[in-house]
């Protein structure tokens, strides 16, 4: 199955003496340059350069120039790029072990989330990536997702029958159905017009995407239900990682961890900034009884029996 990686193999071939050529690696990122995750990826490149005295150079390709996330994961699997930063929702389509973090209300709050992710459970999910020819590093913040709609939603009842655009992922579709809304898959680029003309009644995303996509202009009600909080992470082609020297491997791990911590800070700040911006622009932020939402999605955990044990362990850390 493994065709890949002649590229990484010879790029890391042993050079002689001090002035050997640096190892060049590629990182694919789908957000544009100004997004916190992209900034953190540049930071990762910078940190790795420092830690290896310039022996490893990472070229960051932002703005989905190398393809969308499902594609860049494949590219990292076969060695077209060495690194890619992806959301766990997309990665879960390849590595089901990641799926548990994309379940609704799996984390009680951000403290709990990072207790789980930075601990044993998070590490096990990263270790599992090996069977997909990937190596995973520290988790990053990708925001907490809420619904936003063209008509006010003050309780679960109001959400009934609304057509909500969701990500094309099994869990998102199931969850929306359980909440009584109608999941309506739609190309992200069509959502703005869809909200404007009424093809859909709402969508769901974190503050940052809600703001940067301008969806707040056409869907003025932001419902603080916090249904999903899936992390993002940096993954690497396994051969490319294995071919590195022990010191270089450690440098990559350290740089990725530091970049992830940096990203979390940036992202939390950017979430707040985006919230302020949409409020200023006239968005009404609606507090709802989250427990109502939580109990409505309960049956979803039965739909994924493979996560049963791990869910219990996650709950135990609460």
């Amino acid at each position, binding site marked *: 199955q493994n*065709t890949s990686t002649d590229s990484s193999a010879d790029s890391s071939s042993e050079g002689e003496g001090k002035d050997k050529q640096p190892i060049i690696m590629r990182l694919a990122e789908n957000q544009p340059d100004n997004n916190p995750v992209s900034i953190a990826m540049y930071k990762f490149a910078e940190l790795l350069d420092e830690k290896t005295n310039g022996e490893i150079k990472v070229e960051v390709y932002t703005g989905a120039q190398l393809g969308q996330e499902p594609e860049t994961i494949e590219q990292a699997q076969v060695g077209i790029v060495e690194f890619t930063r992806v959301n766990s929702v997309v990665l879960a389509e390849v590595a089901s072990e990641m799926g548990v973090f994309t379940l609704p209300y799996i984390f009680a709050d951000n403290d709990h989330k990072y207790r789980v992710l930075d601990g044993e459970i998070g590490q096990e999910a990263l270790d599992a990536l090996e069977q997909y020819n990937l190596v995973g590093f520290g988790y990053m913040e990708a925001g907490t997702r809420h619904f936003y709609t063209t008509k006010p939603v003050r309780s679960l009842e109001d959400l009934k029958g609304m057509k909500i655009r969701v990500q094309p992922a099994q869990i998102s*579709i199931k969850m929306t159905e359980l909440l009584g809304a*109608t*999941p*309506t*898959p739609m190309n992200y680029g069509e959502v703005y017009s869809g909200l404007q003309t009424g093809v859909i009644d709402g969508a769901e995303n974190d503050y940052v995407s809600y703001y940067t996509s301008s969806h707040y202009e056409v869907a003025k009600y932001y419902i603080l239900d916090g249904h999903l909080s899936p992390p993002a992470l940096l993954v690497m082609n396994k051969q490319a990682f294995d071919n590195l020297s022990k010191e270089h491997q450690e440098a990559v791990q350290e740089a990725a961890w530091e970049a992830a911590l940096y990203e979390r800070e940036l992202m939390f700040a950017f979430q707040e900034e985006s919230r302020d911006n949409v409020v200023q622009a006239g968005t009404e932020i609606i507090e709802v009884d989250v427990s109502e939402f939580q109990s409505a999605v309960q049956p979803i955990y039965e739909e994924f029996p493979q996560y049963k044990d791990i869910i219990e362990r996650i709950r135990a850390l609460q």
Partner: protein
Amino acid sequence: MNSIKRMIRFLDKSLEIVSMILLVLMIIVTVYQVILRSIFNNPTSWSEEIALLFMIWFGYLGVVNGVKDRTHITVEALSSRLSPRIQRILEKISDVLICGFGILMIKEGVVLYNISNMQRLPATQINKGMMYLVLIICGFMMVIYTTLQILNISIDREEKLTLKSNTNATEELL
């Protein structure tokens, strides 16, 4: 030889029919999506995914068709000034290159099929390998058709004649 020709003609026909069916299915699925959503208020999540899958299949089967009929866009600004003999040589070079492209398409199609084979498309739960399987199939057909062209094997496609007379007929009508 004749049985080969018969087989190729069968392949021609299947290629054509399957492409057409996929095209029609794409339209039907998309219209069905609208009907379910706007009339029955029951949006589907599978329709878009399946329409896209049909499009990828239909598209690349079409590409093979274009290789077979030599209908892909070329630039003739330079080559049209060359002697007919050199033009024939260029045509052969083109066939050989496309044949090579087809061989690589099979090889890499297999790899892509294998890595995506264990994944499912999110809404339909169809094996994601289906997205790349078309590369393998079309690669094979491209190799077959270009090989026939390289070896100057004529298939005597009578349908081509009818197509020509057809267009003549429509031109007269207009």
